[in-house]
């Protein structure tokens, strides 16, 4: 299983109640300068920042958000990881 981590230089900020990823200069050639993400993605971002792998993300999300469909949840997490790594906001270990 691939393990992802947040790209160094990309910072999760909160501006007017919105979760915004802002890239510092060194990260900008590789990823977008400003990216808006939703609350769930911000939650996953924080967990990834703390070093979580996919299984740990799943457990954390199950605990935080009530759900009775772990497979759908895993699919959503994988979609998040895929999208964020395609945008080069995450890097694969």
């Amino acid at each position, binding site marked *: 299983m691939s393990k992802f981590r947040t790209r160094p*230089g990309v*910072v999760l*900020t*909160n*501006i*007017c109640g*919105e979760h*915004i990823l*802002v*890239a*510092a*200069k*060194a990260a900008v050639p590789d990823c977008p*300068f*400003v990216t*808006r993400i939703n609350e769930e993605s911000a939650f996953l971002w924080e967990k990834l920042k703390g070093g979580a792998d996919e299984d740990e993300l799943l457990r954390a999300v199950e605990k935080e958000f009530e759900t009775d469909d772990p497979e759908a949840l895993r699919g959503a997490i994988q979609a998040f990881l895929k999208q964020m790594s395609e945008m080069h906001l995450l890097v694969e270990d």
Partner: protein
Amino acid sequence: MAQNKVYQVEYAGHPVKYAFREPGTAALFRERLTEACGEPDVFETEEFLERAKRLMPDEPPEGAEFRSLICLTSKLLLRHGCCLFHAVSFEMDGLAWLLTAPSGTGKSTQYMNWQRQFPREARMISGDVPVIEASDRGVLVHPSPWNGKEGLGNPLLSAPLGGIVILEQGSEDRLERLEPMECLYPLLRECIVLLETEDEVRHIAVMLDRILRSVPVMKLVNLGGPESTALLRGELKRIAAMKGARNE
């Protein structure tokens, strides 16, 4: 280092000490500069200055040094909740207003229109690069030594920010209010900070949050003529009156 005289400039009450490499640079700060003691906060490396000269081939050496100090100064101010911002800034009805846009989009034209149509109503704070402060003291606009080609600015004039106007050239005159997320990128683009570190990103995000929660941001699509200035003036007057009424 010992042979370079140290000078000090205050921005929003925060002193920044400089030493210059070019003999003519101090004069470009005009009356804002005082002599100081101790080590400078800003003393460009020769390499940095040479790069600045290459990037600004039309500027004399002291002009290139003067302009290249904008970024370094802004970096220092960030820790105080301040940054240098690319805009024409003026005071009207006790509030500061920022007209911002990429160079050549008509910021100075709008201000000149204003002076022609409504003389003595607006007073320039800085013609090119004011200091925005978004700290516990509030959101304020202060002058800086960088006043653009026309050199317009008042070193003693600061005011609470009333609003920000993003200018855009277009085929009609239209003024619209922007949602915070619509103006985030244009505002970040005009903040003169290199955002070299994650801490700098966090500082600027806190500042933008305070600014966007405090004042309206508008977009003025315009033809550059007097009608657009009248349209803008009407809206800024309305905002100032509402703010005044709230404070009474």
